[in-house]
């Protein structure tokens, strides 16, 4: 058996490796190379050195987008995780109809980002009309609009992950702590939270990367308006690449920088939260 595995390893791994190479590895290498080139489509690239990286900082646009994204991500990571954790706690109590609530809360996640963006644009603009303003009157409205939208969409999903974590806390552990006289507060901070650390790792990783990568909701809700003040990095890259003739390489360079930033942050976060995970 072992021998056969070794013998056929290459053969069986090949399809997966080919797919990985075609869909991921080759495009990534191409993308990095193209960020040093001037091109209009992938077939006519000429070497341009670091010029794209210089043009990227020609104005404050990219830095602003990055800064807006960071602010948004921090806010959405905090709010989504807190709200979904509270919901998870509530829906693991003995309340009748918890499954129905879980399903309902999960549902927004099944709707695509563009559709959600349009729907929330109508809702929020309809509300703001009362004050004779719109989502794009002031960047603050767009910011909070995005946070609300993101929460609505993601809370249900994260809640399911937390619920799974909470349900899996061993009964003995809870009983033991109750016998030792732990009150609800101690239970929460010294039993529940440490036990669901793996869920927290996953949820914070997902919300962090979702926040950074956010594109369709941003496009549909404000499209960066007013001006470019609510434009997040992904949308900024898209607009640079497709919106400006001769700036394809600059968009590509921004994408490379963006990948590096997101990868660094996500890996750091994984490392930090993993350290806190405990064996039950």
């Amino acid at each position, binding site marked *: 058996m072992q021998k056969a595995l070794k013998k056929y390893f290459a053969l069986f791994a090949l399809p997966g490796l080919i797919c990985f190479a075609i869909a991921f590895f080759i495009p990534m290498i191409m993308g990095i190379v193209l960020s040093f080139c001037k091109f209009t489509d992938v077939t006519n690239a000429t070497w341009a050195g670091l010029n794209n990286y210089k043009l990227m900082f020609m104005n404050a646009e990219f830095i602003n987008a990055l800064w807006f994204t960071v602010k948004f991500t921090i806010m959405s990571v905090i709010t989504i995780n807190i709200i979904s954790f509270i919901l998870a706690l509530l829906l693991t109590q003995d309340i009748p109809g918890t499954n129905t609530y879980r399903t309902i809360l999960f549902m927004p996640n099944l709707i695509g980002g563009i559709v959600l963006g349009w729907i929330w644009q109508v809702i929020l603009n309809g509300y703001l009309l009362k004050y004779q303003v719109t989502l794009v009157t002031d960047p603050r409205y767009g910011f909070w609009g995005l946070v609300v939208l993101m929460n609505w969409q993601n809370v249900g999903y994260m809640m399911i992950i937390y619920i799974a974590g909470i349900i899996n806390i061993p009964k003995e552990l809870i009983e033991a702590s109750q016998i030792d006289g732990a009150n609800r507060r101690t239970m929460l901070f010294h039993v529940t939270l440490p036990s669901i650390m793996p869920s927290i790792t996953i949820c914070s990783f997902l919300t962090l990367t979702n926040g950074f990568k956010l594109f369709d909701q941003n496009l549909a809700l404000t499209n960066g308006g007013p*001006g470019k003040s609510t434009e997040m990095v992904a949308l900024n890259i898209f607009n640079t690449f497709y919106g400006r003739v001769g700036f394809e390489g600059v968009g590509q360079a921004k994408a490379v920088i963006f990948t590096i930033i997101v990868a660094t942050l996500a890996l750091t976060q994984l490392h930090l939260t993993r350290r806190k995970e405990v064996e039950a």
Partner: protein
Amino acid sequence: MKKSLVLLTTLLALSASIFATGATESNATEEVYFLNFKPEVAEIYTNEVAPAFEAETGIKLKVVTAASGSYAQTLKSEMAKRNPPSIFQTNGPIGLAADKSNAMPLTDTKFYSILGDKSLALQVEGQPAAIPYAVEGYGIIYNAAIMNKYFNLSSKKTRVNSIEEINTFATLKAVTEDMQAQKSKLGIDGVFASTSMSAGNDWRWQTHLLNMPLWAEFADIEGYDSIVEAGLTLSNSTFKYGDNFKALFDLYLDNSTVVSTLIGAKSVDDSMAEFALGRCAMVQNGNWGAGQILGVNGNTVNPSDIKFMPLYMGLDNEESQGLCIGTENYLCINNKVSDIDKTNADKFLYWLFSSDTGKKIVQDKLGFITPFNTFKENEMPSDPLGKDVVKWMNKDGVNSVPWAFAAIPSQELKNSLGADLLRYAQNQMSWNTLSNNFVKNWASEYKIAQEN
């Protein structure tokens, strides 16, 4: 187990055969792929032009329409595909410069042979490469019924008695402000339709209205026959006539159907609908908007009441100023498609603008005012705005304003102006800052355009 395996393989084989037939089918017939720029006539291409062309020539026509404001993006991704469009559009000398390697020389095509004035074609290395197919005009569209109602109003505070008397900014302003003050008597929400500023909907200001001060500024440059040629040499714009722009833009904002803080969410469709429903008396737009007005459900405007007036903003000699007439609709044939596709593309364009069926659709449905010698005097468009453009073009003592905006160095420049205009309208930016930004951006964008 065995049964399900058999079932699975049968399914696989079936799906494979479906893909296989699909592939052979698409190669069997000849096809012209046209990437359309005008969303407002997209349905006419698919429902009228394509069937008629296929019926007469047996060649299929595939029309893909890019969403408003995203033509360059769509073109870029379509060009990189294995079956790129055979016919694509470019918006003028600047756009063509970006696509010059894709535009085939058109000297020997039948399509070029029917162009009336050969100087209208754009050239790449001495060869015609882009041919205009529609001349368009824009200005302020007004509802003559509402205007007449105002002229007959007993409480009217101006002495203006007919639309012909409005031929300066001062008169326009006086009439507008008086109309706005008496809007309830006129049954309107405001004189001007909302100043649409939502994403992709600000071109009426950052391109079309901007044309006026640019035209005046370019006209000051001496030694050029064409305004656009002069403009293309301008490395530093001073936005010299910016105050004129501001005057008319302010008039739009202050006498509108909505308050300025709401315009960020308004689209051109919204503005045209307001006009169609009779909620406003005027809207700045061009003859392509006729279908939009007449196509709105519950439209209350009589076609014979839809008329044009020039964009008066206090420039010199504005009494003799006409509509802004020009084109940013040029067609190119893709250099990178097969010879058969090139021939078919030429065949299609020649058919559309010279055959009786094609011409009929162009005249009645597409509503293009074409520069081709195959169209006779009586074959001009029948929609009210198209007719009015032709009337203004031929009016005595009036000079049309050319489309100077073709010389704007980049789309980015227009977009940042649009964003600044929105901030200005919402009182978040002073006109001075806006003006300085424009001057600064012009210089930097011109430099980038030269380097490219």
